[in-house]
C-alpha cells in the first residue's frame, strides 16, 4: 500500500473508520479537533453516524448508548473534556461495554493551554472516576503506531468488553508522518447477542451498571477484577531499544519516549550503555519488564511530559533495588533530546542512592531552571 | 338488562392504593381489610359484583396493572343470579 503523509489526529480517524467504526460522537477541543472534523466529513460519506454532541458529557453518554448495541463506537477529546467523561467512563466500565476513546492531552491543570502534555496519565491509568474499574490505556509514539493501535483498540475493547483509551499528547495529534493505512474491514452492523437490539438474543437484554444489592455488586467487581488479571496477562505491550547490554535504562512513553530515543542514541554514540524501555500499554503496565530490568541494571531514568505520574509506578516496581531518577517537563513543555541526554549523564555519573527522592531532586532543579513565577 | 361486567384483582400486584375504589363509578370495589397479600397489603376486591358494568375505569387508573376487566357475566355467578 502507498504511504500517505497524515496528521496523527486524522490518521486515527481514518484508522477507526477502517476498523469498522459505526458511530462517532465528539465535541471540539484543541488539539484534538481535526479528528472530529475529519469524521464530520467522512462518516456521512460512508453512511455511518457522526454527531457533534452538545458537550463531552453528551458525547460519552452517546457512546455509552451506542456501545449498548455492541457496534463499534468511539469518542475523542482532550484533557478537560476527558475529565468531564469520568462519570461516563465509570458507568460504561460498570456495564462491561467495548468503547474506544482518544485523549489528545494538553497542558494543565484547569484550562491550562493547548500545548502537548502527558499529565492525564493518572487520570486514565489509575482511574479518574468513582469505584473499582480499569481502563486499558495505549500510548502510541508515532503516527503509524497510532494507526495500528487504533485498529487493535477496537479488537481489544471487544475481546474484554472494556474501555480502551488511546493517550497521546498534542504534538502527536498535530504531527505528520508517512503512514500505511489498513484496508477497510468488513463492518458489523447487527448487534451481537449480548447487546440490545440484537436479532440473535433469546431473551430481552438489559444493560445497566446498577447492582443495588451489595453482594451482587461485589460479585460483579470480583468478576471484573478477574478479567483484569487476564488483561494483565495478555495485553502488555512495550518496545525495548538497546536493552540487551544496557547498564542504565530510560523509561518514557509516547512523544517523551521517542525524544528519549534520540538522547539514548546520542549516549550510545558516546559509548554509554543506555537502553530505552518505551511502554506502549500504560495500563496494563509492563511491570514484569521493569521488574526484570531492575534486577540487572544500575539505574533508571524516567522521562515524562508531566510531574512524574508514571514515575510513581516505576518507583513502586523497582522497589529500591536500584536508583530511579526523573526528568519531566510540565504544562505543555516538550523536552529536547539534549535535556534528556544531560539527565542521562547525571544518572550515569551521579551517586547511586536507592532511597533517592527522584521527584524532589528534579523539582529542585526545575525551580532553578524555570523558577516558580514568584 | 344492561351489559354487565366483572373484574379480577391480581393480589400479586395490588398495593391497596384505593385508586380503583375511589374511581369506580358504581362503587363496586372496596379494600378488603380482612386479608393481607403476600406483600402485606389489604387488597382491593369486588364488594358489589352486581354493580360492575365492566366500564374498565378501575383498570385504567390502577397504577399496578393489577386489574383485569371482563364484560359479560361472570362464569359461575350467572347461575347464582338466575337462582336468585
Amino acid at each position, binding site marked *: 500500500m502507498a504511504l500517505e503523509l497524515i496528521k496523527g489526529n486524522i490518521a486515527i480517524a481514518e484508522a477507526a473508520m477502517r476498523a469498522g467504526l459505526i458511530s462517532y460522537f465528539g465535541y471540539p477541543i484543541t488539539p484534538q479537533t481535526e479528528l472530529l472534523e475529519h469524521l464530520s466529513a467522512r462518516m456521512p460519506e460512508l453512511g455511518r453516524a457522526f454527531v457533534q454532541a*452538545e458537550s463531552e458529557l453528551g458525547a460519552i453518554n452517546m457512546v455509552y*448508548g451506542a456501545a449498548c448495541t455492541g457496534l463499534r463506537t468511539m469518542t475523542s477529546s482532550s484533557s478537560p473534556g476527558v475529565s468531564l467523561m469520568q462519570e*461516563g467512563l465509570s458507568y460504561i466500565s460498570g*456495564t462491561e461495554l467495548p468503547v474506544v476513546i482518544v485523549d489528545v492531552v494538553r497542558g494543565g491543570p484547569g484550562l491550562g493551554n493547548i500545548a502537548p502534555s502527558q499529565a492525564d496519565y493518572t487520570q486514565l491509568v489509575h482511574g479518574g472516576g468513582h469505584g473499582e474499574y480499569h481502563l486499558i490505556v495505549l500510548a502510541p509514539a508515532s503516527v503509524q503506531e497510532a494507526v495500528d493501535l487504533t485498529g487493535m483498540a477496537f479488537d481489544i475493547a471487544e475481546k474484554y468488553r472494556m474501555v480502551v483509551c488511546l493517550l497521546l499528547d498534542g504534538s502527536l495529534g498535530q504531527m505528520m508522518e508517512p503512514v500505511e493505512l489498513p484496508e477497510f474491514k468488513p463492518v458489523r452492523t447487527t448487534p451481537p447477542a449480548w447487546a*440490545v437490539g440484537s436479532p440473535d438474543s433469546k431473551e*430481552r437484554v*438489559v444493560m*445497566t*451498571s446498577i447492582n443495588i444489592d451489595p453482594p451482587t455488586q461485589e460479585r460483579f467487581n470480583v468478576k471484573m477484577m478477574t478479567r483484569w488479571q487476564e488483561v494483565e496477562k495478555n495485553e502488555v505491550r512495550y518496545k525495548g531499544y538497546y536493552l540487551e547490554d544496557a547498564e542504565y535504562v530510560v523509561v518514557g512513553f509516547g512523544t517523551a519516549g521517542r525524544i528519549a530515543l534520540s538522547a539514548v542514541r546520542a549516549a550510545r554514540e558516546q559509548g554509554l550503555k543506555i537502553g530505552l524501555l518505551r511502554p506502549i500499554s500504560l495500563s496494563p503496565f509492563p511491570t514484569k519488564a521493569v521488574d526484570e530490568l531492575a534486577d540487572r541494571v544500575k539505574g533508571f531514568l524516567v522521562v515524562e511530559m508531566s510531574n512524574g505520574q508514571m514515575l510513581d509506578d516505576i518507583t513502586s516496581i523497582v522497589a529500591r533495588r536500584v536508583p530511579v531518577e526523573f526528568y519531566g517537563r510540565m504544562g505543555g513543555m516538550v523536552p529536547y533530546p539534549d535535556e534528556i541526554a544531560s539527565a542521562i549523564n547525571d544518572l550515569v555519573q551521579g551517586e547511586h542512592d536507592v532511597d533517592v527522592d527522584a521527584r524532589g531532586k528534579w523539582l529542585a532543579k526545575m525551580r532553578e531552571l524555570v523558577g516558580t513565577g514568584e | 338488562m344492561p351489559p354487565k361486567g366483572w373484574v379480577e384483582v391480581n393480589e400479586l400486584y395490588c398495593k391497596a392504593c384505593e385508586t380503583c375504589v375511589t374511581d369506580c363509578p358504581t362503587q363496586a370495589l372496596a379494600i378488603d381489610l380482612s386479608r393481607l397479600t403476600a406483600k402485606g397489603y389489604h387488597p382491593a376486591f369486588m364488594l358489589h359484583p352486581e354493580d360492575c358494568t365492566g366500564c374498565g375505569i378501575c383498570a385504567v387508573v390502577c397504577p399496578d396493572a393489577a386489574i383485569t376487566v371482563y*364484560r359479560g357475566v361472570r362464569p359461575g355467578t350467572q347461575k347464582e343470579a338466575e337462582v336468585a
Partner: protein
Amino acid sequence: MTETDVKVVYKRPLGFTDRTTHYCPGCTHGVAHRLIAEVLEEMGELKNTIGVAPVGCAVFAYNYFNFDFVEAAHGRAPAMATGIKRTLPTKTVFTYQGDGDLASMGMGEIIAAAARGEQITVIFINNTNYGMTGGQMAPTTLPGQKTSSSPLGRDVETQGYPIRTAELLATLDGAAYVARRTLHDVRGIRLAKRAIRTAFEVQKQGLGFSMVELLSICPTNWGMNTENSRNWLAEHMLPYYPVGDYKVSTAVSEMKIGGN
C-alpha cells in the same frame, strides 16, 4: 347472555414482565409505565423497542418492561438514546425520565436532543420533587411547596421559579410533538395514552423529537394518601402546568395514526 359472550375489556399489557414494581402504593409512575406498554403493544413495536431508564424512582423500570432496556446515568438518557438511535435507526427508542433527571441534571442533554430533532420519544414524569432521594426540591417544585430541601416552602426569591418544560422545549424547531397530560384521573390518563401514542408514531414516521410530559403524584414524599395527592395535583399542579399540546409540527398535524 352466555358465557361465550365474555370479553376481556382490559388486561395487563404484554409489554410488562410479571414482576411487581417497587413504586409506592398509588404512585402514578405505574400508570405511565402501563400506558407505554399498552401503546407499544398496540403499535406492534414491543419487539422493536429499546427503552432508556433514568436515575430516579424509575431507575428499575427495566425490570418491569418486557423488551430491551438500558439504564442511563442521571440526566443523560437523551444522549444515551441518541447513541442507540443513531446506531440502530429502525428501532423505536424512548427515554423515561423524572423532573430532577430531565429538567435539572439533564437539561443540557434534553434541549440538545430536541434541537437536533433526534428521532426519539421522551416520557417525562413531573412529580414536583426528587422522589428517589427522599423528596428534595425539583426544578418543577411549585412556589411555596415544602420539600426536604425547601423546608419552609420554595422561596422563589432564592430558590427560583418552576420550569415549564413542555413550553420550554416547544420553542425548539427540532421538536415535532410536545404535549403535557396528567395522570391524576381517568380522563387525564386516557388523554395521556393518546398523546403517548402520537409521540411514538411521530418517531416511527421519522418526524422528529417527541415528548409527553405527564403530571404525576408522589404520595410518599408529598406526605398524603393517594386520594389527597390526586386532588393536590388537580388543584395545584394543573393551574401551573396546564395540559395541552405545546408543539404539533405541521407534519405531525397531518400524520395519520393507523390501527386500534
